[in-house]
């Protein structure tokens, strides 16, 4: 029987994590998530800056690296223990973090179509965390002004202005997060199957 605590594919926006409590496996509240820190390359996330919880919350000098995340759910971000937090500057030097920040970047397919502008990063929670896509304010190609979700391949090229995705990504666009998990899986399965060319044809 599948218990109610099973989260097989919890999808969430990176910005939704702001304010989520950071709790150790020992059951102690350590901090809450302040912001997402992006890596300088690949559109990946380096980790999170932290703040203290409550009314008198102060910014903290430590941060949570991506690989120290044990689990992410609806109620909390879990870490093994407090020793896994690192001094914030170690996470990513500020300049690099800005370059790696994909928010407001233009999403271009490798065939040169503008799919829109990144407004948020979609993460898959559960055991650890995985960047699986972007929420995009669509450009002309997908219907101007529409908010859509675009799946991400395992690796992606990013410059701080543009973000390149395979053209087939346009076939797996979703209007809501609920249907997006299947879209990501379908998209990645197609990439593994090496049938990119067909998809290229389909969207042109």
């Amino acid at each position: 029987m599948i218990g109610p605590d099973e989260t097989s594919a919890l999808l969430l926006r990176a910005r939704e994590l702001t304010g989520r409590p950071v709790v150790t496996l020992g059951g102690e509240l350590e901090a809450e998530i302040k912001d997402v820190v992006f890596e300088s390359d690949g559109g990946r996330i380096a980790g999170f800056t932290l703040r203290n919880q409550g009314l008198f919350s102060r910014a903290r000098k430590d941060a949570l690296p991506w690989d120290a995340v044990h689990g992410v759910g609806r109620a909390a971000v879990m870490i093994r223990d407090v020793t896994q937090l690192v001094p914030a500057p170690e996470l990513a030097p500020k300049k690099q973090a800005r370059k790696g920040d994909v928010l407001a970047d233009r999403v271009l397919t490798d065939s040169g179509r503008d799919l829109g502008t990144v407004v948020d990063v979609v993460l898959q929670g559960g055991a650890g965390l995985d960047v699986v896509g972007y929420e995009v304010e669509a450009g002309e190609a997908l219907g101007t002004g529409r908010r859509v979700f675009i799946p991400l391949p395992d690796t992606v090229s990013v410059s701080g202005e543009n973000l390149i995705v395979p053209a087939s990504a346009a076939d797996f666009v979703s209007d809501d997060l609920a249907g997006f998990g299947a879209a990501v899986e379908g998209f990645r399965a197609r990439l593994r199957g090496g049938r990119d060319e067909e998809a290229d044809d389909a969207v042109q």
Partner: protein
Amino acid sequence: MLFSDALRRDVVSTATATRVARVAGFVVAAGPARVALLRLGKVTGDGTLLAWEDVQGFGSDAATVADAAVIRGPRDEEEERLDSTASDILGKRVLTERGDELGEIADVDFDPETGAVVTFITGKETIVGDRLIGHGSYAVVVSVDRSGRRTTG
């Protein structure tokens, strides 16, 4: 036996046959899940802690100790922290190691012979004691139900 039934039970010294305290709370430890300490009220001395090892019997009418002298104060910082209502497991939120909430602890079923926790009971479900990973001031953390599907990330 349920914590809710065991609370406020008399602690009787078998040496003097008198009531020496009353059960006020339970400190649960992980690995394996068990009652590590009893917190006591209505004590005569300064100490309010009773290690499970020093409990002679936990019966349906009273808990017994060989002598009131086994009731003691905290031995270290950790026990000092546990010696307060903040360490009480009843009413505490339950989180899975994946960060999802399973409700609050409504009651705990424990084996009065060994002190082992059999199940944690929340409003929604019954969680076997083996799933306990940790218990702190903010939450009780349990593993994900192994009978269910798992993500591969």
